[in-house]
């Protein structure tokens, strides 16, 4: 009796775990089925080479490049802003700051990641864009610069927290050896500790990139809804995620070609984040082995 009960419990626990596999398969299946239907009407060649994305207009173009350029532009600005600051914070907290300071500041910084992203969107549109317009007069009301910068603020804690964990877990013997040779903290940090923790730092950067390209509400609010192939950060653009939101807010018929565009855009996004996540998982596994 007891054995049967134990077995039933084990199987039901297993089925809960299997739901996670079902979710992944579901995502891949849903995205691919609709994308295959999409490509029965639109040529793949056009999808990757056309420089216009206008599925909602009468003259339709289905080139993903403008959405991709928008996504990469905002992500690039975000990373360029967050990377130096996030890394400096992590090195400062791990190597320089007193223990009590580190303990109280880290959760505060992590609050930055807990703020809902629509709130950051508000911040970008209502505070940062008007502020930047004073400095850059021809900055459009919707632009990738302020969306990217605010996204950078959001991902600072992703970089600083994970990197700090990596730096902190470098054995003290390495630090002491370096100090013993007469190195300053700066030399120790950059020549010994950072190289030793490099895989953890790289993981944090990859996760931050993946978070940036999947980020939706900041760009939907502040970057505009005009897909265009440009690297100019002062004009309105549109990202993959913002396009999906734009279509979802309108009245698009289920089964129409417009409806399918969001799945084709979605699978493009999914492939990029999937590659980045897999890469970071691989590096993390290797790094765990190194210190255990």
């Amino acid at each position, binding site marked *: 009796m007891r054995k049967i009960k134990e077995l039933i419990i084990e199987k039901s626990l297993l089925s809960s775990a299997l739901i996670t596999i079902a*979710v992944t398969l579901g995502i891949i299946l849903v995205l691919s089925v609709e994308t295959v239907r999409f490509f029965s009407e639109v040529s793949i060649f056009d999808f990757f080479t056309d420089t216009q994305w206008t599925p909602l207009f009468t003259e339709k173009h289905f080139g993903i490049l403008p959405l991709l350029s928008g996504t990469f532009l905002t992500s690039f600005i975000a990373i360029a802003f967050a990377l130096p600051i996030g890394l400096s914070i992590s090195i400062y907290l791990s190597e320089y700051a007193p223990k009590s300071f580190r303990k109280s500041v880290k959760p505060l910084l992590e609050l930055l990641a807990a703020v809902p992203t629509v709130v950051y969107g508000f*911040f970008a549109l209502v505070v940062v864009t008007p502020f930047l317009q004073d400095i850059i007069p021809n900055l459009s009301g919707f632009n990738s610069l302020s969306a990217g910068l605010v996204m950078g603020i959001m991902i600072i804690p992703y970089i600083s927290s994970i990197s700090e964990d990596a730096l902190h877990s470098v054995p003290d013997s390495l630090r002491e050896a370096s100090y013993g040779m007469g190195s300053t903290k700066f030399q120790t940090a950059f020549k010994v500790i950072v190289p030793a923790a490099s895989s953890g730092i790289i993981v944090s950067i990859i996760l931050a990139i993946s978070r940036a390209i999947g980020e*939706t509400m900041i760009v939907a*609010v502040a970057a505009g809804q005009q897909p265009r192939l440009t690297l100019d950060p002062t004009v309105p653009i549109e990202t993959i995620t913002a396009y*999906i939101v734009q279509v979802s807010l309108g009245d698009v018929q289920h089964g129409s070609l417009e409806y399918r565009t*969001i799945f084709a855009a979605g699978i493009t*996004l*999914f492939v990029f984040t999937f590659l980045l996540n897999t890469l*970071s998982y691989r590096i993390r596994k290797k790094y765990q082995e190194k210190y255990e």
Partner: protein
Amino acid sequence: MNSIRKNRIKDQIFRYWGIFCTAIGLVLLSVFIGDILIDGLRRIDWDFITSLPSRKPEKSGIYTALMGSIWILLLTTIIAFPIGVAAGIYLEEYGKKNKFSGILEINISNLAGVPSIIYGLLGLEVFVRIMNLGASVLAGSLTLSLLILPIVIVATREAIKAVPTSVIDASYALGASKWQTIWHQILPASSGGILTGVILALSRAVGETAPLIVVGALAYVPFAPESPMDEFSVLPIQIFNWISRPQHGFIENAAAAIIILLCITFIMNGIAVYFRNKWQQKWK
């Protein structure tokens, strides 16, 4: 001598640079909360919380959106909590170190990194269309449950891992079965950690906007939902809708609604931190 001095100066410069960078993060956080308080605080009163949305900003309230968020929160908890904890227990206690558990682990780590909007596309096709739930509270909650599942699972595993083996060995030595050990020893001992993870996951769910927009949650709903099959809006979508309007009154409303949303998020985070500290002390 000269190069030693140079190195000391570099060291000092970096120390101040580090303080400066840390301050940037904290200053931005406070500037930003301060600005929202200035914009929105005077708009908050009892009427704002109990009024239905309206075309006139000064008459608009967040009642339907707030009720929608509470519905979503409750249903998501009911769905994600048991499944996530059960999956976490399986992986930590039953999943042997074989190829299959390796796949499960990679899969969960990958799911945690899938952008939330992709979950929206999954929910739209599976819950809204195939299961024919429509743009209902239930469809939204199911979608968010899948979204937070990886967070709950990882938190459960971490909490279980922290239970000392002495507790587990003692239970087995007294003749308890595996499930008895889990139910009477491991789960009570790890409840603080699990609770922390679940609350953090839910605080993420309450701020999610994009997947619910994709699932079809509305920006304007005349009534608060009364059953899981009703249409709904949530606070973040109400905020998004108000931000997108040109009149200044709506910006004020958005700021006020953001204050309410941030209060909910920060209180949930506070509770989570409280449980974590209490729980960590227990094993020291």
